[in-house]
């Protein structure tokens, strides 16, 4: 490994930069001084903790522990999806819809890539499995949250249009189709933009990290392309699934628009 190890002193120097920023913002009365310090401490503690967890996990390479960590990541991402929606489904649906679609899409694509493309031994080797899954979940989370937020909000805003169509004998699919399409589009656009801008505007984080740790640029690029494809497919499938199931759940068995299932 030809990576230059960082010492505690190195990080302290970097921390000084953040401290200067905190002092400056206190002096300018931005009301952010405290927040900057707390955020700095949080990021240090959280990343050190996950570092230890990963260290232990890498040494063990035990499927049970890897699955457990994957589950925790999924649940946190599911909570985040729920929190990012202005209006969301009530009860278990609020958490379950995003979490389930994210689970099916992210896990199946990650496992597929690990088995068919990476082909490590064992296939669930955490050095590959955890970062891949993490990137999948992070991006899928954003896509689903954006799409569901758009879906529930537009159904709420345009309830008159939906009910007018139902009154004219349209079925629920026709009545929600336009809004469902828009929602999927909104969920997918950030990823498509990222693919379009990759390499020109920004160097993707993972690729940069690999290059920093000494991977030849072309190898890093190949991994980045793989990741981009995985994320796009995963976000796309998950977003479509979540929007489809969510749209169906906006109506009951008599095809009535049930906005009482949404909370704001």
């Amino acid at each position, binding site marked *: 490994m030809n990576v230059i190890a960082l010492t505690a002193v190195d990080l302290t120097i970097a921390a000084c930069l953040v401290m200067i920023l905190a002092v400056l913002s206190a002096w300018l009365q931005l009301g952010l001084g405290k927040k900057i310090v707390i955020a700095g401490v949080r990021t240090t503690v959280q990343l050190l903790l996950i570092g230890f967890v990963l260290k232990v996990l890498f040494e063990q390479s035990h499927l049970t522990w890897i699955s457990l960590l994957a589950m925790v990541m999924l649940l946190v991402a599911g909570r985040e999806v729920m929190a990012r929606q202005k209006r969301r489904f009530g009860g278990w649906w609020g958490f379950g819809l995003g979490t389930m679609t994210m689970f099916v899409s992210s896990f199946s694509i990650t496992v597929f890539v690990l088995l068919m493309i990476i082909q490590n031994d064992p296939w669930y080797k955490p050095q590959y499995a955890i970062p891949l899954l993490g990137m999948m979940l992070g991006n899928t989370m954003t896509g689903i949250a954006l799409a569901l937020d758009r879906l529930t909000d537009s159904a709420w805003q*345009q309830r*008159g*249009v939906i*009910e*007018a*169509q*139902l*009154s*004219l*004998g*349209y*079925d629920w699919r026709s009545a929600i189709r*336009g809004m469902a399409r828009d929602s999927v589009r909104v969920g997918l656009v950030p990823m498509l933009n990222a693919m379009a801008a990759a390499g020109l505007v920004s160097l993707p984080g993972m690729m940069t990290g690999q290059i920093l740790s000494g991977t030849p640029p072309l190898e890093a690029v190949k991994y980045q392309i793989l990741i981009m494809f995985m994320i796009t497919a995963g976000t796309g499938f998950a977003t479509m699934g979540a929007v489809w199931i969510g749209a169906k759940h906006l109506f*009951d068995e*008599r*095809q*009535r*628009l049930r906005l009482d299932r949404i909370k704001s």
Partner: protein
Amino acid sequence: MEQQQESVISLQDVSVNGLSPVNLSVNSGECICLSGPSGSGKSLLLRALADLIPHQGEVYFNGQACSSIPPTQWRKQVGLLAAESFWWHEHVGEHFSKRCDDDLQRMGFDKSVYEWSVTRCSTGERQRLALLRLLCLQPKVLLLDEPTASLDEKNVEAVEALIKDFVKKGGAVIWVSHDPNQIKRVADRHYQIINNQLQEKAA
């Protein structure tokens, strides 16, 4: 059950949101009016009859229970005209499943109205066009929620004449109206909602 066979639409213990259970039958060729203070549940009752909101009780169309008919088919036969009209395409014509030029002229439009942009139409024009849009589907029952609320006298007359023809051809109408004179002109029977109870008002 005999009586249900004769009536086009009949309500059996239908209740929504605090309104006491309603029993009511409307026969073919009959127009009944509903009135009552705002917030008394008139619009909710109409929405329940179109099966747009959950409700207790059962509604029958020609003796067939609402719950036994697919909702899309039910709503085509029992057509609801909401108080506010909604439009989702750019042009008026795109909202019409088929053309109905005769009725169009009676309401003071000509065929060019299909090309009109919806944003160009006034509230009153939209209200009349929404009625035409619904009549094109040839429903057997009309549920009208203040269909002449924003119309001038001439257009009120035209709408009333059009509905009267619908009734004459064997349709059944439940019409929510606030105007006592209009009720006198169009209603065969008049019901009021007083203290959450639907009561027939003597003519």
